[in-house]
């Protein structure tokens, strides 16, 4: 099963309609999900808010905002992600990221910039406590039992009593368990420090590499490490993350380049070519088992997403490699990931 996703980032765009348009376009292309990046270091709206605004205007496509874990409150973050899952009826994801600069630290004035190693360890703790808090309500905790006057069965709510290295959370969450159980956690696993966190906690790992062999090596490593953490490696999807410049023509804008695969640039691996060649590349990497799919960041947001959806996707569909409709309704359904069991089910509260 091939998985496709796209970024809907648009620099200096602050109105809702532009984001709705791109997300609908992605949904028209039956993509698994769209991502919207976020950082305190550059201009831009709060990404989770934007995708909440997009949710009622779309029906099936997964919605994956970046939410950083360094200067934010884990309790608020998990509640917001769970709520995105509620308002989208099970389509929420969350791309975790850290804030590494002193400039970002000064916006909060609470702590200094810390080494990336410490920040990614903390991001792992936030991913962990978030899942505990999502599980702090069992699915059937709401009972509305009129004879006993009880709205909930409190034996099905759980304090999480989480003690991290730099923070603690008592719980339970204020939000009932979201439709997907756990919204999908996404981590860019290109760098080693983030890769460990991804192997342990992510449902989807993104890797920015320029060829299939490298992608396959990272995928193998991620799966091995996931197994070492006691996970079933089949619960982890690894997507190659490329910038896509689909040029102006049907075929390669740069002669000889489109067929040759992406090349490394300062912004990451860049694919430049036509939609037809991109379909070829996707089919070939996926066919070799190097990746479970792709995450594409259009160089020109609208133009390249249109080319992807109207050019590349139909070719992949025609070859029977990509879905032609959404058989399921949640992001987990699209990704072929099971709804996780509740870690507290059956425990005393």
């Amino acid at each position, binding site marked *: 099963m091939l998985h496709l996703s796209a970024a809907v980032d648009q620099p200096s765009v*602050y*109105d*809702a309609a532009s984001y*709705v348009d791109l997300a609908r376009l992605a949904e028209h292309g039956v993509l698994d999900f769209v991502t919207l990046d976020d*950082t*305190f270091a*550059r*201009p831009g*709206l*709060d990404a*989770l*808010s*934007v995708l*909440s*605004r*997009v*949710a*009622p205007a779309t029906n099936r496509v997964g919605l994956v905002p970046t939410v950083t874990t360094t*200067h*934010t*409150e*884990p*309790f*608020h973050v998990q*509640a*917001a992600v*769970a*709520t*995105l899952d*509620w*308002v*989208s*009826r099970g389509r929420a994801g969350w791309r975790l990221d850290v804030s590494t600069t002193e*400039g*970002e630290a*000064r*916006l*909060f*004035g*609470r702590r200094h910039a810390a080494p990336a190693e410490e920040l990614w360890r903390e991001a792992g703790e936030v991913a962990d406590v978030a899942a505990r808090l999502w599980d702090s*309500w069992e699915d059937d905790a*709401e009972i*509305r039992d009129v004879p*006993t*006057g*009880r*709205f*909930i069965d*409190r034996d099905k*709510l759980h304090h999480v009593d989480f003690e991290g290295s*730099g*923070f*603690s*959370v*008592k719980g339970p*969450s*204020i*939000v*009932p368990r979201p439709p997907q159980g756990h919204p999908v956690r996404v981590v860019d696993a290109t760098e080693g420090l983030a890769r460990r966190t991804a192997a342990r906690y992510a449902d989807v790992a993104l890797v920015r590499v320029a060829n299939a062999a490298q992608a396959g090596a990272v995928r193998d490593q991620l799966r091995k490490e996931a197994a070492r953490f006691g996970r079933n490696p089949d619960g982890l999807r690894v997507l190659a993350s490329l910038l896509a410049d689909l040029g102006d023509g049907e075929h390669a804008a740069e002669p000889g380049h489109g067929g040759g695969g992406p090349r490394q640039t300062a912004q990451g691996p860049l694919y430049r070519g036509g939609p037809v060649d991109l379909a070829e590349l996707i089919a070939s990497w996926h066919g070799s088992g190097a990746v479970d799919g792709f995450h594409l960041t259009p160089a020109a947001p609208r133009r390249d997403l249109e080319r992807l959806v109207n050019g590349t996707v139909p070719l992949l569909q025609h070859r029977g490699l990509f879905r032609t409709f959404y058989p399921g309704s949640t992001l987990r359904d699209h990704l072929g990931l099971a709804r996780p069991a509740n870690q507290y089910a059956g425990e005393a*509260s």
Partner: protein
Amino acid sequence: MTKQIHLAAHFPGVNNTTVWADPRSRSQIEFSSFEHLARTAERGLFDFFFLAEGLRLREHKGRIHDLDVVGRPESLTVLNALAAVTERLGLAATVNATFNEPYELARRLATLDHLSGGRAAWNVVTSSDAFTGENFRRGGFLDRADRYTRAAEFVATARELWDSWTPDGLSRPFAHRGRHFDIAGEFTVPRSPQGHPVVIQAGDSDEGREFAAATADVIFTRQSSLEAGKAFYADVKRRLAKYGRAHGDLKILPGVSVVLGDTAADAREKAAEIRRRQTSPQTALLTLEQIWGADLSSYDPDGPLPDFDPVPDSGITQGRTRRGDTVAIAEKWRALAQEKGLSIRQTVIEAGGRQSFVGTPQAIAAELDAFVQADAADGFILVPHLTPGGLDEFVDRVVPLLQERGVFRTEYEGSTLRSHLGLAEPAWKG
């Protein structure tokens, strides 16, 4: 012109005002419920839709409180989604100033204002107990005395951030150094359609009123009797001059409940039935335990009240519940029970809060109007007891009568919440 009434819709909350056992009651968490109430409010041309917040589930006798609605989604996320299914309705989120940081919250509020085309509002609350703090990095770190000094500096800082981009779209660095916050850098969001999202304050103390007079655009109050409302209104409006603010710069909106009937008797009967449903036998006992500060589980809700005196400051209940002087309340309730021969449950129903307005649509419209014209309020935040249909009837039957009286809009004139509330756009302080 006659004073115009402002109306807002409060999504049913996590206390026993909300009757979850009614067969018409729907989900408290699914988006469809929020959409229903918001669309009803917009159909009724309301000023805004309002969400409350609680950051720790309440506990009673060391266990999670289970008799009322428990759990709700995160406010700002819901409101961004509601921005997609409404066009003019203001969208107000309650967000705590103690357990958040100005940079991030100012950014989320400015984002909502952009995505909704100028409809965002923030109800600044200040609860800062250590019990709630256990869910946060900071923990319970704030003295009660500091809750409003932090809130005031928080709002001032947020406004500095909202002003940090020029109206024509240039970002400029900010720096704020104060007692609670020492931050600097650049804000990531351009000035939003309202300039500053609307600021609401909910808190009854003297400090709370002063904070509102200095800072807020709207006060959400609990006063619902005409006399108490007039006194509160005069007191708060009097404080405005000190801060160079005009009478109309701060709107006072009490939270109220309304019960409609075809006749006055019909409405009274419905109101009594709702109060009975709001006070199940279990809720009656729990209410008594909160006052007595003791375990009363062996008492019969249909039997007499305890004859011993309450235990003061027992801490039996944690979370957002305040009862004031419990010894005095207990004495009053015992006297009431004695005089009328009431059981525990009957006493709690009788002594508990009554609906603010009970009557026919005509009578209610007249009363609401009189309340506003008498300067007991500038309008109301309506708190329905049913999710999500609890304001359908009000919008269908009372709003047209208010319009006939010439005291409520017949269409939205502007597109921002500030324009609905008749508030000026804040001057840009570059």
